[in-house]
């Protein structure tokens, strides 16, 4: 390259680096709208409140004397309205820490989350 002045290459190189840096910052701003999306979707998908509520309903069912009709209500409505296969059963009372407790088995499956528990209910 005749008559080309190659002074100032450092300045050009630094300019290039700044330009690339600005592009990466722009990319980060572009992605910031997504912050919290997977968190929120994870919270929405995980049926924490459903399982807590089901446990309380089962405990109420045990307290009221384990009526078969109530158990059928909970299983049928869970399948129809909550897309969840639910089953629970109550065993004979056993002594736990000096008190008599019912062993309650709770099973919950909505296709994504599976929850199984044996809880001793006083």
């Amino acid at each position, binding site marked *: *390259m005749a008559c*080309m002045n*190659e002074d100032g*290459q450092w300045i*050009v*190189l630094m300019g*290039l680096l700044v*330009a*690339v840096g600005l*592009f990466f910052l*722009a*990319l980060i701003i*572009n992605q910031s*709208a*997504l*912050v*919290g*999306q997977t*968190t*929120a*979707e994870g*919270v*929405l998908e995980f049926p924490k*409140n*459903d399982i807590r*509520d*089901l446990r*309380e*309903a089962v405990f*109420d*069912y045990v307290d*009221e004397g384990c*009526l078969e*009709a*109530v158990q*059928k*209500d*909970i299983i*049928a*409505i869970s399948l*129809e*309205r*909550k897309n969840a296969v639910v089953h629970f059963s109550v065993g004979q009372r056993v002594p736990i820490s000096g008190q008599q407790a019912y062993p309650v088995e709770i099973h919950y499956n909505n296709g994504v989350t599976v929850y199984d528990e044996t809880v001793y209910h006083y």
Partner: protein
Amino acid sequence: MVNDSGQLYTMEGIAAGLVMLLTAYLILSTTSIYTPGDTHIPDMQLEQLGSDVLAMMDTPDTDGTKSDLEIFVTDDNSTGFEDMFLDYCNMLTDGTDDDLHMSANVTYRGEGDQIEEYLLVEPDETWTGRESAVRVTRWVQLNGNPPGIPSDIGASRPRAVLVEVLLWRA
């Protein structure tokens, strides 16, 4: 013989290539406009709020008494249910009210094992705007048939019903 003239042109060419690639990427990735509603964050917050409000309403004042939620369903008291629910979830820390609206259904198992529902709280004529409505539920156990229930529920017996609340921000 290789000489080292023209380095600046080479560098410029590489830089131009990078800039074009990045620009193309940015343009392609901005064709879908992402709003905060698409990230489901408001939905998640609204659902959690609704679940907490139902849990509050389902907590009796003292041991052995009925919860407010159970009394509202037993008495078919739709205005009482709506007032308390909206009172709890519209409260903001700065003293003003939020603009949340709701409707409620009760789902029950009828005589022939069919699942039916009836309207407990009628929806009002408001639009949701940009955010979607969320559904929160709570089990309630009753000792008999509530008065507002259709007759296909069958004989009066202790039963579990599901209270479903549809909640949206207008």
